[in-house]
């Protein structure tokens, strides 16, 4: 089957990203295809390339990136939710006159339409929030 995930919880605020990551790994291990993860609401913080946890704690961003590289999972981040919360790609940073940015590939800023497309395209959309 083809799966999609909707992640709406931030690291250190919610257990949701941890649950989502373990679920993602189990989905793939059982031979399903994980098409993409859509990060919305506070979930956008998962994409922060400035996240610097202590060394004995899991870096969730790195774990999502690994999932992308190993299994070609799309990592889409809602652009409106991200901008409000201070998550900017290099292009968005330039557009808004900022010299720094904290969101890079393989995370992609995209519109909410992408979430609805993911929901329609996949056999299952599971929410972690």
């Amino acid at each position, binding site marked *: 089957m083809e799966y999609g995930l*909707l992640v709406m919880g931030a690291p250190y605020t919610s257990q949701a990203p941890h649950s989502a990551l373990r679920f993602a790994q189990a989905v793939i291990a059982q031979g399903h295809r994980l098409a993409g993860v859509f990060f*919305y*609401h506070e979930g956008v913080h998962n994409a922060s390339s400035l996240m610097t946890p202590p060394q004995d704690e899991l870096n969730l961003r790195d774990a999502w990136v690994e999932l992308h590289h190993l299994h070609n999972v799309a990592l889409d981040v*809602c652009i*409106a*939710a991200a901008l*409000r919360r201070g998550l900017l790609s290099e292009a968005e940073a330039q557009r808004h006159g900022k010299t720094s940015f904290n969101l890079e590939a393989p995370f992609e800023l995209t*519109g*909410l*339409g992408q*979430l*609805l497309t993911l*929901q*329609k395209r996949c056999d299952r*959309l599971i*929410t972690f*929030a």
Partner: protein
Amino acid sequence: MTDSENLLVIIRHAPYSSNLLREGLDAALVAAAFGQPVDLLFLGQGIMALLKEQGSGAPGQKASLPTMDMLEMYDIENLWTSEASLAAIGVPSAALRDNVRLLEPEAMSAFMQQYSHILNF
């Protein structure tokens, strides 16, 4: 573009407490803009968005009333809530906007089964 796959968006958080109400409504508006039939179900704290008087907006915070008013423009006309949730939060049905419809407790499960997709905010 229209679409036979209908969507239910469930709203369970109050206007100012977090951005979940706002971001849930945004998802409904985008789906409607894509031509997908969308209904809204308000439960728990989400019912606070249905109050007639609601919307003046806490100073410095964006009011949700404009977004609520946009729903009709996008043909999202079915706003539902549940009698049980209404009673639990203590809101009299007379305080609600005019176009809100009530679900009886026994009807809730069958109601949700009607939809191809559900998003729960």
